[in-house]
């Protein structure tokens, strides 16, 4: 026979456990509701340096064109970091809500290497290439937008080479050539046709 006071104690404990469980469940539910949606944009580290006026070449799918757009972004003095910041600003636009040329969520530039004389190597992440929309013009707009933005804002860039996850790749998404070394003068002439 279990003493009456023990029965009461066990009962109170059970009620306490159930109450705690209910409380924790509600707290968790609220936390999930208030948790911000995952931000697909690349995490932008604070860029040291004064804000500078730059020209971004923004692809616009609606007309299949590139538009020069002025922007003010903080730019460090080192060329390589400037290149990274420029591409970050470009990707922010493409990954934004009203993107004129949407890229897949999670698209990012892993690294930018400036190799003298005048060669830039851009290493894209796998999502950038694997989830890129396929099409001659869509891919061309992405490639030329990146190259022209760098060439317009960093002096003495002559050639650009793309890698994906550190490796060579034949095309971006079936069309735009990533196996070649892009000549910035030729791309500038092409951009003039695309504006």
């Amino acid at each position, binding site marked *: 026979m279990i003493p009456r006071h023990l029965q009461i104690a066990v009962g109170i404990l059970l009620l306490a456990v159930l109450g705690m469980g209910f409380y924790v469940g509600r707290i968790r539910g609220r936390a999930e509701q208030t948790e911000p949606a995952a931000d697909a944009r690349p995490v932008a580290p604070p860029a040291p340096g004064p804000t500078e006026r730059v020209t971004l070449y923004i692809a616009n*799918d609606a007309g*299949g064109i590139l538009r020069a757009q002025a922007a003010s972004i903080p730019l460090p003095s080192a060329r390589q970091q400037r290149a990274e910041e420029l591409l970050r600003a470009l990707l922010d636009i493409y990954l934004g809500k009203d993107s004129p040329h949407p890229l897949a969520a999670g698209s990012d530039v892993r690294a930018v290497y400036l190799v003298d004389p005048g060669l830039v190597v851009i290493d894209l992440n796998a999502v950038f290439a694997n989830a890129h*929309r*396929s*099409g*001659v*013009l*869509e891919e*061309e707009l992405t*490639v030329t937008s990146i190259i022209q933005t760098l060439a317009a804002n960093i002096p003495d860039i002559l050639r650009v080479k793309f890698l994906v996850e550190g490796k060579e790749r*034949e*095309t971006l998404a*079936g*069309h*735009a*050539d990533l*196996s*070649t*070394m*892009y*000549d910035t*003068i*030729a*791309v500038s*002439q*092409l951009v003039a*046709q*695309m504006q």
Partner: protein
Amino acid sequence: MRATMRILVLVLTLSILPLHSADEKHIVIYAPGTTFSLPVTDRDGREYVGLLECVEPLGTVSAHIDGTHWKLRYNDGESEFTADKNRAKVRGHEMDFPGNFLLEDSRGLVPLVSLGTLLPRILNTSVSFNPVSRRLFVGNVATHFTAQLSKTTPPRLVMNFTAPVNPTIATEPGRLRMSFTREPLVGPGTPTLTFDDKSIPSATYVENNGVAEVTVNGGAPLMASFSNDGRTITVAPVPQQPAAPAQAAAAASNGPATPAANAPKVVPTSAPHYYAVIDPSHGGDDRGVALSDALAEKDVTLALARRLRQEFESRGIPTLVLRDSDINVPLDERAAQANTAHATIYVSLHAASDGKGVRLYTALLPSGAENNGPFVAWDTAQTRALPISKAAAQNVAAEFQRRQLPIRTLQAPLRPLNNVTTAAIAVEVAPASGDIADLTQPAYQQNVASGIATAIAAMHNQLGGPP
């Protein structure tokens, strides 16, 4: 819902994939709105086919097994079959059929020859079946044709069809063979048609393993041209051409390792020469752009390539298509084949869902790229031919403008344009009106193909063709 999805997937798969390989036994079923092919299997010396697969693309279908009984529901009618029995109950009526019903891995198999009696009852509509050629027609879907010899000089055999057709055409000495794999073509009253002419003395109609074939016999090499939105095929002797296209193409080609201008010229004599090379982009597991849930870029480019070949050949332009089936050809190999063929022009075909009309591309090469030595750099092999490529693109653009098709001309970093040594353009076709269905419209494809061929043929001399 799941049954609908299964049917949808089956129909789409069947419409995208090639109907069948030539070696396997198949039955082809033609119905309003769809044509599909099913494998035929042999059991105890008799040909069998899956009954569910036969009716699934045609309506709302479900099937379930109850012991040795297999029950099929098609739309509002039920049928019941029993394993190893030759009697079935279809829409409440008992009926016998030749051979036993088989249950294999939950699949219900019926003798092929029984389809002619079973399907009219199950589908509750008329069915016409030829078990020898394995072609089955549901409802009134037949395409008929007439063939009439026009005694012009040279004579022409004009074949008029009651619906648009797009057969695969093969030529061999003295014969032109048209294979109709998707069209519900029905033969003329007699299988052999004779004409009182030495150039085109006869034509024969045969059908076998789901394919209808019309062979036109000729006293000289024959070629076919399409008109009337694919409802008319005209067969005529190939015009006597001077040997110039091949020679001019060879002379104009600047393939890798071609001797420099001051070195002795080597003109290969054994390799076949083509004036035009058509490259339907993508293929196999490379689907290209997903134009819609059901339509891939690779299928549009292949259909367009076939039309363009017909357009070229109808103008007497020898043409090579780099892939004539759903296979993946590496980009480098496409360029290598075009260079080896010593073609005068290379046309790469693409399709897009965005924008309207046609976009024409030429190669984007590094500024100041040169190829002056005896060897040509692979990445800039297009350098010497770029001016003529641009001229070709402008000509094609002008032709499209004449046809009031929206057109845009650009350079593009598009493989393998920069690896091709001859004039090279890429044509990206977007819907004419913004509706993706335009891309599969025969009339639109024909207009695009005809525009390209007309413009290229018009600059024969400029490209290095015969005078």
